[in-house]
């Protein structure tokens, strides 16, 4: 539904997006992840026809966003980051205006607005002026606006930023419930939101794509899984424990903690962890060693995020 091909956007001399390519399939919820200033909003603005790309191509639902912008905009709804609303309209009036602008036929408008208000949970503030609703409601009014024309594609730019945990939870649940019926590009720098909501992640940093895949794929690709053992033994005995197990590298040892040493051995990508852990446990029992933990540590999204936004780019784009 969304195809981005070698997209470049320059602002003056600054390259905000650099040869970015990714796709979002129908019904998929893709997390568009990156630190602030990574080029997420710029990419989204090209997709929504706000900016023109410097070079490259973007296609939304089969329509080129530059040459056939109006057709592509008919099929997508966009929620900008700070959720701008007209201050002098009431919530319901605002949603009616937006529904009409987006081409919802007159006789369906009332029902469409009611449904969107219901979905986004803003029914109780429908008579309030847009500038009088709280931040959380404001965000949800924006979501109701995005939903009111029931568009096949939704582009949400930081829909959970600035909200408290409960409000964020509600929005995550709402977005999650759209899977299958809508294609969603969910931009965020809040990792837990992306982790919970998205099927797949596209991560960019400084305008360049750094990763693209499901969380599990990313974890395997990045190969930062490690086996951790905390054991009462000296360094040589601990190293001997790790020695000769397939796929397990030499451990790093952390300083002694009350007679115990924490050893962290990297597990090669693609190697199944179970047999390795079993073998380690057997060795610990065989050596009659006291231990506190034996387990597989998988990288959290935070760790991947940190390593990707400081490390080198994923090489698939380089060709």
């Amino acid at each position, binding site marked *: 539904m969304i195809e981005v091909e070698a997209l470049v956007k320059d602002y003056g001399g600054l390259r905000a997006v650099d040869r970015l390519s990714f796709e979002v399939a129908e019904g998929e919820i893709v997390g568009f992840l990156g630190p602030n200033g990574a080029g997420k909003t710029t990419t989204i603005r090209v997709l*929504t026809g706000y900016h023109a790309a410097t070079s490259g191509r973007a296609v939304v639902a089969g329509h080129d966003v530059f040459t056939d912008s109006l057709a592509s*905009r008919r099929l997508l709804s966009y929620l900008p980051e700070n959720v701008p609303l007209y201050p002098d309209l009431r919530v319901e009036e605002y949603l009616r205006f937006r529904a009409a602008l987006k*081409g919802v036929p007159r006789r369906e408008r009332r029902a469409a607005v009611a449904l969107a208000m219901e979905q986004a949970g803003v029914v109780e503030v429908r008579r309030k002026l847009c500038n009088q609703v709280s931040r959380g409601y404001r965000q949800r009014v924006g979501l109701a606006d995005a939903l009111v024309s029931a568009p096949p594609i939704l582009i949400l730019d930081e829909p959970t930023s600035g909200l408290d945990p409960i409000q964020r939870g509600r929005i995550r649940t709402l977005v999650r419930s759209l899977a299958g019926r809508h294609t969603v590009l969910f931009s965020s720098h809040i990792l837990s939101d992306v982790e919970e909501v998205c099927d797949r992640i596209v991560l960019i940093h400084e305008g360049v794509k750094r990763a693209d895949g499901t969380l599990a794929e990313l974890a395997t690709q990045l190969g930062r899984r490690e086996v951790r053992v905390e054991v009462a033994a000296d360094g040589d005995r601990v190293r001997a424990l790790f020695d000769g197990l397939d796929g397990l590298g030499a451990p790093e040892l952390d300083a002694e903690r009350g007679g115990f040493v924490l050893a962290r051995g990297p597990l090669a990508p693609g190697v199944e962890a179970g047999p390795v852990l079993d073998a380690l446990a057997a060795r610990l029992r065989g050596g009659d060693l006291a231990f506190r933990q034996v387990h597989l540590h998988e990288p959290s999204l935070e760790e991947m995020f940190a390593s990707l936004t400081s490390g080198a780019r994923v090489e698939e784009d380089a060709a």
Partner: protein
Amino acid sequence: MSGGRMLVLVRKELWSYLVNPVSYVILFLLNLYRGADVYNLVLGFRDGGDADLFAIGYLNVSSTLTAVVLLPPLLTMKAFAEEKRTGTFELLVTAPIQDHEIVLGKWLASWLFYGLLWLPSMLVLVVLQAPWFLGVGLPFGPLFTAYLGLFLLGSLLLAVGLFFSSLTDNQLLASLASILFGVGIFAFAPLLQRGVVDVDSDFLSVLADQLLVRNHLRLWFFRGLIDTGHLVFYVSTTALLLFLTVRSVEARKWR
């Protein structure tokens, strides 16, 4: 279908004018100052004036000429500047509506509201002709052409205001620029004309005459005269300014 979306925008913009308290302040002040001028006209008429002169003078008063220059900037300063400041501009231009429909929609709404502001002065005309007031029939021709001139100049200045509003996110700056423009073509064009009298250039004097909007009003429209040259001037310059505004709205793409 696309025209339908423009009308959706016109309706929303008109609504925004109607719920904005500033609109009513403008309406009140305009009619207060006009009231003072009309009062003097009525006094003059009772001293033995005639209906034709009254009709010619009805809009040819300083309050009206000031309002013609001041109203369009006040009505249009927010049009794009405020949308850019609050960010709704991004929502508007990414909705399935084309840039020229946005510009035309906003212009049409401002023009309709501008017309609405002059409505009381037209109603006053009806009252003035009542038997218990002046009790005379005022000639329709000069009053019609006077309002025509007012609306034509209004459409140009509203387009100018929209253009300046589209250049900035600061509505004060937008209004100042368009007031300066209005005052410029109103007050400084006579200076230009005086300057070119000596130069003896047909081209320059024709140009000065075309730019002398005050003379268009005072010597032509307010006296019941219509020059097609003037009509062409207002329609084409309005179209030009609207075109420039569309380009300015589109310019966001190339930033």
